[in-house]
């Protein structure tokens, strides 16, 4: 058995930033376990630019953004094991992993950072009727075929779901010479970033059909076409709007699901809305010494926020490992008000002493609305927003001074006012 102060599960941007921050805070032995052949997580296949605008102030591609952290890691004594899959984390912080070289690895950790990212919602979960032809795949899989393997997964493409990966792939496939016929989105709004709709669809003349879904797939061997239809306000397809579209590929970009199998095995509480762990402001879960950050905690649209969040987790883990006596804690759970679907963190230690940023997403599109933070009946901030959309993560800051005045009966609410 091996012993490490900190074991980081997942070597994407979240895992790397958490490990680096923990090192900076003085943690001695750290190991990152990554299932893929390389570090970088999902960034490795995102060869488009649009990463790092907030964090580095420059537009980088996914691999470039990842490389900045990989370079930093090389200058530390952090151990990295790639091609290594974590199979289990038990409730005594014993991590079991496996790879070709070492076989089974048992690692006893003082603290653990979970940074496993997320996976895409597959066809089966979408209940699309029809044949089982080849050519139906998630947009992320298609992205890997094109960008990593260098093969075209299709020539005439319909994309279901306007998540960012779908939008990015619409552009990518077009640039590679494929014909992207339409992007269908079930909801009356897109789940993707506005900038991606403009740069990936509008600029290429690819139609985006809102309140539209794919109801059936056709073709016995390779996909030959799909039937699309508009949906009513209860999201039921409207028979009279059915339309056949010839295509050989259907790409699904219908949402991401945090990879929380390991988290659930430890018995950590999961938030029903985010599908990620319930955490405090340092991203510690309700299992002491286990932290979570990045897409495994809640789906982020921008990697910059992943990095910031992971640094909190790294710092939290360092505090946990290095301080003998536990810090004073008194928790308040912020409440979601009108229009706010979830808040991360779900618990705030009011003795923390620092500003605390609450991240959230809204449930529908709002124009010229206000984001209001109310603590103990007092409006702490009320910020005007030209547009709020489910596809873009928002945040509000609770100032340290406000927290200092609170007690365990205090209330914190975030809401949208129209």
């Amino acid at each position: 058995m091996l012993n490490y102060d900190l074991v980081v599960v997942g070597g994407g941007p979240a895992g790397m930033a958490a490990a680096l921050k923990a090192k900076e805070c003085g943690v001695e032995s750290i190991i990152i376990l990554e299932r893929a052949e390389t570090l970088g997580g999902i960034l490795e296949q995102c060869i488009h630019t649009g990463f790092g605008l907030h964090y580095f102030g420059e537009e980088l591609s996914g691999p470039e953004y990842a490389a900045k952290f990989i370079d930093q890691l090389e200058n530390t004594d952090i151990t990295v094991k790639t091609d290594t899959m974590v199979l289990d984390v038990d409730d005594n912080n014993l991590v079991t992993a496996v790879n070709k070289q070492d076989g089974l690895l048992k690692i006893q950790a003082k603290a653990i950072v979970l940074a496993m990212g997320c996976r895409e919602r597959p066809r089966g979960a979408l209940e699309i009727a029809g044949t089982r032809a080849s050519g139906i795949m998630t947009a992320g899989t298609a992205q890997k075929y094109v960008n990593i393997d260098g093969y075209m997964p299709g020539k005439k493409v319909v994309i279901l779901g306007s998540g960012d990966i779908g939008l990015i792939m619409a552009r990518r496939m077009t640039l590679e010479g494929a014909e992207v016929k339409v992007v269908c989105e079930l909801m009356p709004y897109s789940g993707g970033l506005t900038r991606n709709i403009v740069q990936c669809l509008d600029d290429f003349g690819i139609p985006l059909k809102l309140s539209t879904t794919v109801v059936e797939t056709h073709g016995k061997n390779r996909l030959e076409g799909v039937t699309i239809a508009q949906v009513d306000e209860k999201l039921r397809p409207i028979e009279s709007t059915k339309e056949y579209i010839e295509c050989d590929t259907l790409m699904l970009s219908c949402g991401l699901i945090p990879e929380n199998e390991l988290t659930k095995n430890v018995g950590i509480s999961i938030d029903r809305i985010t599908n990620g762990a319930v955490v405090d402001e340092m991203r510690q879960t309700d299992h002491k010494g286990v932290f979570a950050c990045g897409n495994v905690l809640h789906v982020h649209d921008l990697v910059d926020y992943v990095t910031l969040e992971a640094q909190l987790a790294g710092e939290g883990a360092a505090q946990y490992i290095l301080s003998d006596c536990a810090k004073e804690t008194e928790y308040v759970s912020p409440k979601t008000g009108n229009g706010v679907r979830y808040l991360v963190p779900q618990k705030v230690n009011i003795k923390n002493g620092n500003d605390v940023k609450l991240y959230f997403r809204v449930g529908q599109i709002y124009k010229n609305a206000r984001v209001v933070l109310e603590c103990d009946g007092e409006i702490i901030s009320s910020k005007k927003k030209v547009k709020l959309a489910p596809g873009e993560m928002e945040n509000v800051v609770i100032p340290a001074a406000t927290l200092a005045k609170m007690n365990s009966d205090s209330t914190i609410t975030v809401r949208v006012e129209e």
Partner: protein
Amino acid sequence: MCFDVAVIGAGVIGALTARELAKYKLNIALLEATNDVAMGASKANSGIVHAGFDAKPGTLKAKLNVKGCSMMPAVCADLSVPYKNNGSLVVAFSEEEMETVKNLYDRGIANGVPGMKILDKKALKELEPNLSDEVCGALDAPSAGIVCPYELTIAATENAVVNGVEFKRNCKVEAISFSDGVFSLKTTLGEIKAKYIVDAAGAYSDEIAKMIGDNSVELVMRRGEYFILDKAVGNMVSHTIFQCPSKMGKGILVSPTVDGNLLIGPTAEDIDEKDNTSTTANGLNTVKTFSVKSCPAVSTRNAITSFTGLRAHPVNDDFTLGASKVNAQFIHASGIESPGLTSAPAIAEYLADVITNAMGEVEKNDSFNPVREEVFRFRHASDEEREAAIAKNPAYGRIVCRCETITEGEIIDAIKAPAGARDVDGVKRRTRAGMGRCQGGFCGSKVVEILARELGCEVNEITKFGASSNILFDKTK
């Protein structure tokens, strides 16, 4: 060269029959139209080992069902196929349905089904607390079980091949002629000669029979749609839960699978095409509505996939087994709808008897080995077994499918096995790579790579399930 027997169709019937015939010194060919075994009804069914109270007493169906059910545990043990004796319950929702339950009980007794009991509501709810409060009682058949139908077919084929059967894939029989006591089969792989034919072509067995001028089998295609739910809800029930049967069959069931998922379905809808395995919005809705009646907590929010199976329903309502009236060397194995999977080991024995009796003196094959070695499954292995396996072959240390924890070593084994996998779905059925909650989202491309490497071809030649189901087109610019 002339085979003694050509078995047409590598479904569970063809595979087990070929294996049974391999117990004799015979030259046997197993001919399959598609790229893999178990591509017909044998891959898409409920996987239930029925106890045998459904069929009319005196029919082949009744006799072979009960016999097959009792043979199944040993066959599965020999072939290292997952089987579980979980028992089944036919649940009644009214006093009227309780009458049906009693009738089924009587039928079961007539058919020789062991151990049946009629349960009242209290006993039933104690056994299965997640059943609806509307239940009145049930027929409890403890001899019923569950099995993985495609794994049984795959294992039987492997074992048949190891024992000398020649397996030919992409070998579709298109015409048959007969002269000088020998059949000549025109196939997509050229001409094949055989003295005997076993027609185990499932939905197409009527068409094969017509090739020799035998029009005695009449089949109607009946579609059945299902959902597979996530393992997280796999133990909602421990028994297989049937509703009371109707004219169209055994109704919508809720059952655990041997792999720990929950299966709900099938519908029953007569259709015209023999190969229309599409799912439909209506069918899937029916599955939802009726499964909730048995278990209110069932929700397709947990669905990981849906699929369709096609029953070859015989108009005469019984299996057709044995020599054709047109040509005694042509052996029918037709009209094998449910409980065909359950009956398969008994059908195989029955057919082998028919053939060897017709042949007269046939020497036993003394070197026949009924055992298919257990396949290494990382997910089921202990830490020590994992250590040992990785030490022997490091590929067992590389996880490819993370939802189901399948290693590269297992995928390579599946490709290299006798009658091994040639496409992505074939790997999936043999290893479960891609069968988990992400449905191949992550491992799909890796499986394509491994297949191309092991088969020595380009990745864009790899298909999902043979024919033109290619996954990739040309290289990017």
